[in-house]
């Protein structure tokens, strides 16, 4: 199932325009103050001190002119990224652009400074502008390339984040499809035979028919409502299991005996949603469905210190009696889900019980809130 809110790619770097402008100005203000302090100190050391205010003013003009140019440089960099096949052409393009932008910046800077600091001995002249605009031009080119590199780094980071997001989304979908697969294990044989049993009960035992319908409804309701919930309290899991077992009991009458041994302290423990049903169903399939004699299915839970043990035992022919000794799709899913939920902190074994039949044992961390 697709969920629109999740399939929309999220943007991790591109923030609203206002926030970007604020960030731009803040960064360049910091740069200006730092550079101002630096030149003030250097000029002080060199014996030609300038007023602190003058130094700071010049550097801030320098920085804010860059702040004004930054959006254009970033946009240009985004439009013509370097990481393409035509990287050489792009490199030359940006080299030219860097010189151009640095020159524009420098000219603007000197025009402003000369205009503001104009005094009788120091007036604006193109001659001075032409001589000064080339000094420290390499610094401007360097800043352009710095912006270019920042833009590319941000691009890579965004791609990385998007990839990571997609991976987590895949994982979620996997889990969901696994749950769907579990739901599918309400096999047609079970469903149609149950409906047939109900249809027979209607005539002679209407109350039992109603009971069976409500159990079936209970099962369907729990399955439908299980979406998104990876874990439920054991008590809830047992409601589902009991409905299932009651239906089977009605279908097979004395051919099936169900024994539940649930330790009271385990009732509130969290277990993977729909964990037990495929295991019990498997026991049933190897029991009642393949075995003529009376089938006994036992479900047992126990708290063992920090762990919760769940056991399902049948008196069927055991594991190796089955062709290829396949675990079946239900068990593969069970194992995969347990691994996803508990990492290495679980165990799941299906063995032949010494007294015959198959014995499935699951051990997971004992916990009462959703995450272990």
């Amino acid at each position, binding site marked *: 199932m697709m969920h629109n809110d999740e399939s929309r790619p999220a943007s991790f770097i591109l923030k609203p325009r206002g926030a970007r402008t604020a960030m731009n100005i803040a960064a360049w203000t910091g740069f200006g103050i730092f550079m101002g302090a630096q030149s003030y100190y250097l000029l002080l050391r060199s014996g030609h001190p300038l007023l602190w205010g003058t130094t700071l003013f010049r550097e801030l003009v320098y920085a804010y002119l860059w702040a004004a140019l930054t959006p254009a440089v970033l946009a240009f960099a985004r439009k013509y990224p370097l990481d393409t096949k035509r990287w050489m052409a792009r490199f030359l393009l940006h080299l030219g652009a860097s010189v151009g932008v640095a020159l524009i910046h420098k000219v603007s800077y000197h025009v402003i400074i000369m205009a503001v600091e104009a005094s009788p001995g120091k007036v604006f002249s193109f001659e001075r502008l032409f001589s000064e605009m080339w000094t420290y031009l390499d610094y401007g080119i360097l800043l352009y390339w710095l912006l270019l590199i920042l833009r590319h780094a941000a691009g890579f980071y965004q791609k990385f984040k998007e990839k990571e997001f997609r991976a987590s989304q895949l994982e979620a979908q996997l889990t969901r499809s696994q749950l769907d697969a579990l739901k599918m294990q309400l096999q047609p044989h079970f469903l*149609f*035979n149950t409906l047939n*049993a109900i249809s027979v009960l209607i005539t002679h035992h209407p109350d039992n028919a109603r009971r069976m319908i409500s159990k079936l409804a209970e099962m369907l309701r729990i399955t439908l409502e299980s979406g998104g919930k990876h874990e439920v309290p054991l008590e809830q899991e047992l409601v589902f299991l009991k409905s299932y077992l009651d239906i089977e009991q009605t279908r097979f009458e004395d051919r099936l005996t169900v024994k539940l041994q649930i330790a009271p302290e385990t009732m509130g423990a969290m277990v993977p949603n729909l964990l037990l049903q495929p295991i019990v169903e498997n026991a049933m399939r190897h029991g009642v*469905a393949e075995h*003529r004699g009376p089938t006994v299915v036992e479900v047992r839970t126990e708290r063992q210190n920090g762990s919760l043990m769940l056991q399902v035992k049948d008196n069927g022919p055991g594991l190796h009696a089955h062709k290829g000794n396949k675990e079946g799709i239900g068990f593969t899913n069970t194992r995969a889900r347990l691994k996803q939920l508990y990492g290495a902190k679980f165990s799941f074994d299906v063995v032949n019980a010494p007294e015959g039949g198959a014995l499935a044992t699951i051990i997971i961390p004992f916990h009462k809130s959703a995450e272990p």
Partner: protein
Amino acid sequence: MPGKIRAVIVDDEPLARQGIRGFLSGDPSVKLVGECRDGVDAIKFFSDHTADLLFLDIQMPEVNGFEVLESISPPRMIVFVTAYDKYAVEAFNVHAFDYLLKPIDPDRFTEALNRAKTEFGRDRRRDGKSKLLPLLSAMRAHEGRPERLVVRAAGRMHFLPTSEVDWIEAAGDYAYLHVKGKKILHRETMHELEQRLAPGNFCRIHRSTIVNLSRIKELQPLTHGEGILHLRDGTRLDVSRTYRQRLVALLSF
């Protein structure tokens, strides 16, 4: 006026049997003569009973409905009952067999019963098994089951894979299965066995002999088109003229 239709129900779920019993109970022309709680029970029942109409569930423990039919002389009329089996339902359609899907629709049941009644009024000597064979072999291939024969030893019923049978000898209406030097009496005629055993594995070589091809050591030709067949275990069997040509053709593969 023919007598009542003798019907048998085979299903491993008590309520499913009760359902069909309920449908039949109102009909004076049908008499329920047996109810079997699974496939093994059904094979036992038909070893000393006969019936006209069989309601047969397919999915049952240990022995399914098709295996039951392979092992008995089936009633003339069979209505398959299934909860869900796409392939089988297709096969029923292809081979023109009647079937009911669970939960059973009363109108569909009446239709099937009426068809059975019409059929019952017709030719009563028709062989039910020959019509079944193509369906049974298709289902066996689909289910990947090995070919098995139901045999009784010391009053107990068990399944013998046909691959274990060395050769088969006629014994009146029955047959002796020769398995590892032992003789097992089997309740099927040579004709029935010849029909149902896979032709690639078995071949009739005489009016009273069928042989497992994998056991043959050599064929020694005699005059008049007859021959003697030597088996790996030293057994020597007569090959009659009628069957020799087919045997030679099969052996040349």
